[in-house]
């Protein structure tokens, strides 16, 4: 088993055979890999199948109408197995917090489901709340927090059981520019400090360049990997944001996206 690869996707195809969408080819021969401990973004026009790909990498169930070909491996295992093995932490576009639980209880949720002892759960949650500066909000209800804070809690929840790999599907799409940048810095810190591997889905070019070491550009339906761009900039990125190389990457990816959308 090749342990340097966190995710490998090989010749992956997805077809939808719905009533209205006969043979809708969404993903076509997608192949890429994500190195262990790296930060990779997937960018593509909306509706190109990013969420579909995300779901399949996460090992989530698919509808009957979904026809799949090819292979996805996470640390050499099938996504479902990796999910059972608690290798995957999912962060969805919506924070998806339970309103009938407090912030602390929401972070505790996966631990409870996975059968951690109560004492251990408490310890983990306290530590996480502390390190994420969420302690003052631990007894708040999700609806009492701003969108950014809610997403932060959902990141905390994903970190609770310490998965190796974080999968994020446009987690900050609903945030304003300032909050998005704040959360971007936050997620980079988490990635560095906790030594995670992150696969980040976005449709925002700035965000992709600001965050990742590698950006995978998908074309429109049926999506293929149009280009892969290695971002050779050092972290923290707010220090290199003004330099011409940074803008060159943004321009390059914008051009690819334009070409891929036509």
């Amino acid at each position: 088993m090749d342990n340097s690869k966190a995710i490998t996707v090989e010749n992956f195809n997805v077809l939808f055979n719905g009533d209205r969408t006969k043979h809708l080819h969404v993903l076509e021969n997608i192949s890429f890999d994500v190195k262990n401990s790296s930060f990779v973004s997937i960018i593509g026009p909306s509706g190109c199948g990013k969420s579909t790909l995300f779901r399949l990498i996460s090992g989530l169930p698919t509808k009957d109408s979904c026809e799949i070909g090819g292979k996805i491996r996470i640390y050499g295992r099938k996504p479902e197995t990796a999910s059972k093995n608690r290798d995957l932490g999912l962060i969805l576009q919506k924070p998806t917090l339970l309103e009938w639980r407090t912030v602390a209880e929401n972070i505790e949720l996966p631990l409870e489901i996975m059968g951690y002892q109560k004492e251990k759960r408490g310890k983990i949650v306290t530590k996480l709340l502390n390190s994420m500066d969420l302690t003052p909000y631990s007894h708040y209800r999700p609806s009492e927090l701003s969108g950014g804070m809610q997403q932060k809690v959902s990141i905390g929840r994903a970190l609770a059981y310490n998965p190796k790999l974080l999968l994020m599907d446009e987690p900050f799409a609903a945030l304003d520019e300032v909050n998005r940048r704040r959360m971007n810095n936050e997620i980079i810190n988490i990635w560095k400090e906790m030594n995670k591997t992150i696969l980040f889905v976005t449709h925002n070019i700035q965000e992709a360049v600001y965050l990742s070491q590698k950006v995978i550009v998908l074309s429109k339906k049926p999506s293929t990997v149009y280009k892969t761009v290695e971002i050779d900039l050092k972290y923290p990125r707010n220090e290199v944001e003004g330099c011409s190389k940074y803008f060159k990457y943004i321009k390059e990816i914008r051009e690819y996206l334009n070409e891929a959308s036509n």
Partner: protein
Amino acid sequence: MNALRKEKNKEREKRPTRSFFLNKSIKKILIYLFLLITLLTIWQILLEYFDIPKRIAPKPSDLFNFITKEFFIPHSQGYQNILVKSLFSLRDALLGFLISLILGSLIGIVIFKNTYIYSILFPFLFLTQLIPVPALAPIVATLLGYGFFTKIFLIVLFCIFSVVVSVRNTLINLPENYTLLLHSYSPSRKEFLKYLLLPSLVPTLLSTMKLLCSGSIVASIITELPLSVKTGIGKDIYNSFNNQIIPRVWVSTMLISIISLLFFICISKFEKYINKKYRYGQF
């Protein structure tokens, strides 16, 4: 942030809401009392003026006479006054209500999970809504007997449809991101049930309970007519009507209305309390 909250709470404490509220409600009660007395007086005067007989419309004085006779003058042993009979009807209604809630939720969950069972079961459930329960009563009675169980069965038959439908609708409309997230933690059905499905049913069940308050009492009273249930206010109203004891019919009807209203108010308060405190099923 916490400091801000405490500040707010303090402010709330300072506000003289409590006494103000009491004053307001006393005022309200007085107005209602005044209206009631005026109405009764007008009613009494009108009926006396036009000399309308008791068997068509009883005067308030007739009703009061009946009430004193029924409740304040001792009866022979074993006599059940209309309040006791009403409470028997209420008991049956409550039993049917509870069974409908539990059984209806179970069926709702099962037909949500299994579309095959849904397609088989739904026409029958729908049929229970099309056939009026009183019309069905004799048939069920000949099959199951004329007693208590048939009555409960009919109440459940009358109530269960709305529970099943609202439970299923709630489950169908569960936000997909929540089901996916839970699935990523554990694909087991048990965890899904415990952490997502049951909590999200709470507000639905509470509002369905409000709906069933009057429904179950109506069903309880109506089903007493064709059955040979001895104690029940429905049967009593029917018998009194046949014997032309009209004041008794009137007072019984008012009594069961008041009981129904109180039941409804209790459930409403309970609903508000639970929804506010626990926030189950709020997405």
